[in-house]
Each structure stands twice: as C-alpha cells, then as structure tokens.
C-alpha cells in the first residue's frame, strides 16, 4: 500500500495499477480527483441527488474491482471514468422510466471506443478551463444543442429524438454531426 502523500503525486495512469492491486489509498486519491466531475455528470443526467450518488458509487466500485483492466493506450483515465459514469447514469435513467437499457453499457467496451491517437489532444484539452468547455458546448445553435442534449444526457436514440422533435431522422443525424463539429472547432481555437 502506498502512502497517501505518494499516491497524490502519481498520475492517474500510474494509480490504476495500484487500484488494480487493491490499494485503498490510491483509490481514495483517484476518487478525490474525479469524484466531483463524476457526481456532477451523474446529477446532470439523473436529476436527483440520491440517484446520482448511487450511480457514482456503482461506477467507482466497478472501477475499484476492475481497475487492472484499464489500458492506458486507449485513452485517459478521466475520460474512461466519465464514460462509465455516463453510461450507468443513462442506464439508471432508463430503468427508472421502465425502459430496457438501449445501449451496451459495457465498461470494457468503453475501452474499445477510444483509440490511442486521441491522447495528445485530449491531454491538451484537460488544461482547458471548465468555463471554456462549457462555452464551447453552450455556443451551439439551439437545434444542434437539443439533439446532443437528448442523446448524450438523455440517452435517447436518434430515431426517438426524431420522433420527439417531429423532424426527419436525417435531420437529427445532421444536427448531431454539425454540433459536434462546432464544439470541436471551438476547442481547436482554444488550443491554438
């Protein structure tokens, strides 16, 4: 077991093998770093505190018990963690609504989604302030923001969104694409 002071000096990617070896000090540091962002995301999705706490607890315990599975070549620990939290929150949201979970919320699959080439830009993005990130997302035109909101934070499929908004499926897909491209463009300007 590492001492807390030492664990605090380690990078996330260095903490994960320790967590995989069941080091509670390493896990505590990991939670202190990302628990706030994880809870914020869960709360944003499920909309109530007890439910958000359940999601975070489940997600972090899942990570504690599968920490050794993290593969640093496939992305950052924070991105991986927030993906797990998001998927579990959507799962909880859909379960509460009496709907079968739509997606394959497999924590392992999250690792597969993110190629190593993302790392450089992602690491750079972590230095963006939260305000800048919120600004990039908040700058979207309403129709683009709406479809991204419904998909990412609401867990709705593109066909569900098309039905809800009364627009063609192709329009939903187009707005999603334009929205992500615009956020990406804002971030690119911030990184320049």
């Amino acid at each position, binding site marked *: 077991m590492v001492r807390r002071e030492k664990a605090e000096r380690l990078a996330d990617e260095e903490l994960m093998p320790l967590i995989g070896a*069941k080091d*509670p000090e390493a*896990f*505590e540091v990991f*939670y*202190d770093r990302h*628990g*706030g*962002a994880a*809870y*914020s*995301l869960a*709360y944003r999705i499920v909309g109530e*505190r007890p439910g958000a*706490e359940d999601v*975070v*607890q489940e997600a*972090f*315990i*899942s990570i*504690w*018990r*599968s920490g050794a599975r993290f593969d640093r070549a496939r992305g950052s620990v924070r*991105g991986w963690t927030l993906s797990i939290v998001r998927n579990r929150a959507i799962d909880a949201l859909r379960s509460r609504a009496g709907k*079968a*979970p*739509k*997606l*394959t*919320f497999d924590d392992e699959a999250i690792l597969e989604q*993110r*190629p190593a080439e*993302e790392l450089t830009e*992602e690491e750079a*993005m972590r230095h963006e302030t*939260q305000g800048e*990130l919120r600004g*990039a*997302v*908040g700058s979207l035109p309403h129709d683009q923001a709406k479809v*991204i909101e419904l*998909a*990412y*934070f609401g*867990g709705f*499929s*593109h*066909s569900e*969104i098309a039905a809800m908004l009364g627009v063609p499926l*192709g329009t939903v*897909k*187009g707005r*999603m*694409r334009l*929205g*992500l*491209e615009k*956020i*990406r463009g804002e*971030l690119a300007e911030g990184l320049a």
Partner: protein
Amino acid sequence: MSEHNGHERWSEELAAYLLGALDPAEAAAFEQHAEGCERCRAEARWLAPAMQALPESVERAEPAPELRQRLMAEVLADVAGVEEGDTEERRGWRQRLTGAWSRLGDGPLGLRPLAGVAALALVVAAVAGYLVGSDGAAEPSQQGGAQETIVAGEAPGVVAEMVSEGEGGSLHLSNVEQLPPGKVLEAWVQRDGEVAPAPPLFEPDDRGQATTTFADIDGVEAVMVTVEPAGGSEAPTSEPILTMAMPE
C-alpha cells in the same frame, strides 16, 4: 477500401454513434464498417475531443461527504475480505456453504454451469450502511434507511447486490449470460445449514440483468442461484452461478 466502401453513408452515422444514439444493432454495424474504414476512424479521432468536452461542461455539483465515506467503507471491506479471507468466521462460512452444497451435490448434476460463468463465491464484500473501523471490522451504522445494500460483490462474470426491502430483500444480478432455451434461474436460501428454494423463478433480460425478491430474509445465512429447467427444481441440479454469504 475506405473510399469505395460506402464511407459517405456511414459517415452520417458517426456523430450518432459517438453520442451513443444508435441502437445496438446499428452501433455494431457501424463498428464493423469502421474497422475497415480509416476515414471513419480518422473522423472519430478528430471529433473525440468534442465528446470529451460534454461531460466536463456540466454545472459542478458537490457530492455529499457521506458518498465518499460509503465508497471507502466498501473498498476497505473488500480489502479486509481479502486480507482476512481465512479468519475463523470466514472459514465457518465456507464450511457451512460447502457442507450445504455437498449435501445438495449428492443428487445428479444434470446441468453443467453456463459456459464462461464460473461457479462464483461472493464474500461479504460491501456493506453500505455499515461502517468499517480501523481494524476492518464492520459495525452497524447509525444511518439506517428503508432500503439499503445488505451485501454486494463482484467476480468475473457476475455482479450481485442484495438490497433490503422491509423484512425481505431483492437480489440484483448483472452480467449474467443468456440462458439456454428451457432454462430459468432459481434462487435458494440457507437457514441453519438447510437449503430451500426461494421463488419466484427468474431470468436475465437481454442485458444480462436479473432480479428476484425474497419475502423474508431474516436468519438467512446465504443466498445461492442456480440454472434450473423451466418450472424450477425442488433441489439444485447444477452448480451455483452465485453463492453469497449474508452478514450476520
């Protein structure tokens, strides 16, 4: 092959895929295409930072300190479970469980365990509502509630959680493999070393999640789940996919 494999059509799906808005079959088809399409993969890499910005852009909310306490209690209970795996108490549990199943095992084992789902023994791992002291011993918490996790655990293949509901409880399983046709899950409870079926029979949904309820869990020493023929069995006919010791 990227230019001549329908990239333009698949490219329209990329944002929906990244946002998790494709149905599972559509997502699988997209992934299959993207494996052989460098343009799709390059576009995904370019858009990835935008996806990373979404969770980071939400309004910050502070979790209650109790969440951290519960989390660390669960983690420390896990560690204590590993380090004290051969304590007298745990040996006692193991003997009781082994004894129960060896008695049950006298009958024919008509069904092999599900492929890939190893027989699983869950130690008393997580006790929300219990506080773990510095010596790792669990003590009853003063933060009682109507519904609390009594015990939870995870091992390769299956995750399980028992939640109290009045005098009874509900057992939530996830990552359960799909059952062969004509098979169901049956739960069993052990009291005073005796094992009895605990209806109702249940099945995993298409995401591998399964839930069953227990009308009364008072005095239950252990809960087990086996795969049985449709209609259930009076005694287990297969090795358990789950054996969970309940806290005393």
